[in-house]
């Protein structure tokens, strides 16, 4: 039994100095694969944009301006500002930033509420029973029908917008979290029970990590949903700025390149947010990816 320590150190040195030989070690392969995927991805993107440009030029419809026109418009509207302000124009500062703020706050609030409620529902069948009906009812309600009620309860502006965003994005997080919390490996729970872990420990150290993969699916849905709902929220009475506001204002005055500029901006934002999200997810769920990968 005492030899073991020696053995493992020897193993470690051998591993460190070991020559991989003629075969390529796995990470190199993996890195290559990732590079190839990235290159492929850009290629697909470039081809699609080219096709889009060609198609819109051929069609010549005012409603579908070519991407070059859209990009020019985006530049003129938002990104031709002074370098000191990261090239943002006044219009960008007045519209994009408030939108992002709303989205971020709404997402944070909604995600938090979704996780908390989802865990409560997933953990306690009693809570689940009491709330299930009401939550399912609320989940099915189209928010536009409730604008008037929201308006009276929350008043104009930010509070109402946030409530609106949160109310809309909470559901995917809630349902997926509850599902995750309800399908924890039973032997894990029994292990907790045997070692008499407190409720809080059980929640934080076992239920939450096992629910995380499913929770992340919900969060990823909620993230792009929060962008969408942000646009809806900026249609609400009393809104006078934001990407969504610009978008609808552009359409009501038939400034179609401006409308498309807003659409493309939303797409780009969604894409970027998703990339950031994936980075976070890869870190948080590293164990999950590694453990569920088929060996080799």
């Amino acid at each position: 039994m005492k030899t073991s320590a020696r053995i493992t150190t020897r193993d470690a040195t051998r591993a460190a100095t070991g020559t991989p030989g003629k075969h390529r070690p796995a990470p190199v392969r993996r890195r290559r694969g990732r590079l190839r995927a990235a290159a492929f991805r850009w290629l697909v993107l470039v081809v699609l944009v080219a096709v889009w440009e060609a198609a819109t030029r051929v069609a010549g419809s005012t409603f579908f301006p070519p991407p070059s026109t859209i990009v020019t418009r985006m530049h003129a509207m938002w990104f031709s500002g002074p370098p000191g302000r990261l090239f943002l124009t006044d219009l960008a500062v007045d519209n994009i930033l408030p939108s992002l703020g709303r989205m971020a706050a709404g997402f944070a609030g909604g995600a938090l509420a979704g996780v908390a409620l989802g865990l409560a529902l997933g953990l306690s069948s009693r809570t689940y029973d009491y709330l299930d009906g009401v939550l399912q009812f609320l989940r099915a309600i189209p928010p536009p029908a409730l604008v008037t009620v929201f308006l009276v309860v929350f008043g104009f502006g930010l509070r109402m917008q946030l409530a609106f965003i949160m109310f809309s994005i909470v559901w995917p997080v809630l349902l997926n979290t509850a599902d995750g919390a309800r399908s924890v490996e039973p032997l894990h729970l029994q292990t907790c029970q045997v070692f008499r872990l407190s409720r809080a420990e059980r929640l934080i150290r076992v239920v939450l990590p096992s629910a995380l993969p499913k929770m992340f699916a919900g969060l990823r849905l909620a993230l792009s949903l929060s962008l969408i709902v942000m646009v809806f929220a900026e249609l609400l009475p009393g809104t006078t700025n934001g990407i969504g506001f610009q978008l609808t204002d552009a359409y009501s005055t038939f400034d179609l390149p401006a409308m498309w500029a807003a659409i493309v901006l939303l797409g780009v934002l969604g894409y970027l947010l998703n990339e950031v999200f994936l980075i976070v997810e890869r870190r948080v769920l590293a164990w999950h990816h590694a453990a569920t990968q088929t060996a080799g």
Partner: protein
Amino acid sequence: SSGGTTTASAPPSASASGGLEKTKLKIATLPAIDSAALYVAIDQKLFEQEGLEVTPQVVQAAPEAIPMLLNGEIDAMFGNYVSMFAAHDKQALKLRILAEGSRAAPDSLSIMALPGSPIKTAKDLEGKTINVNVLHNFQELALTQVLKANNVDPGTIKYVPVTFQNIMSSWKGGQIDAAYLGEPMVTAATSAMGARKILDPASGPAAEFPISGYVSTQEWYDKNPKVSAAFQRAIHNAAKLMENNREVVAKVLPTFTQIDAATAATVTFPFFSSNDNPVRLQRVADWMLEAKWLMKAIDVKSLMSPTTSG
């Protein structure tokens, strides 16, 4: 109760339909008093006399009908000029005005304040928040002119978009200082809330301000000149009929708006145009250019058809 799809059911008489390019028309309308002429024309069988069978399609806002116009789902639409000119200016569509529709009548639009409000005169509106349906529309355009005429700086007004359904609650909630109302809300606010009228946006320079008309695309017009003329005649004849006859209007209102018969009997109607007048319509285009809502001037006369009704 809510569809408002009254269809002219009688078949066109053989004599009347002679020479028309087509006889069945689909026209987009709004669930608002302004569209009444079309419904009166249907109700009074004026289209039938012209050999037309018109089916109205209620849409919720005019910009929504433009794609329908472009892809041929509808033949023509009822829309406000500000939107239509903007669309024309941005080349979203080549506009053709088939017939004028409504003009603002005194007291059909109103800037109002609640009884306890410190706003008493037009001057008090400076720096205040006022609702509009959407930004950059005819409400703003007309009010700007009227304010200027009243020595109020229109630049100080803060406009916020509030959808129709939510005006009352945001007004009561203090989120807007004064409300920009149209009928039937003017009547309702006066009687139910004791609201006071501060200013009539359709007075002075904006008196009889043209709001909406019946439009199609230039392409459609070129293909259907006779239908266009027949359509215009029917609308104009309806307007003439409506001029001194509240009842014909009140009768149709409940069929396509949410105005009940009792209210219909008391609300103030806009003017329904029984002839087309390029001069007063040119004002709208000029004001839009002045407000920089248009990139270049529009010669409204070139978009209009000759009046064929007497």
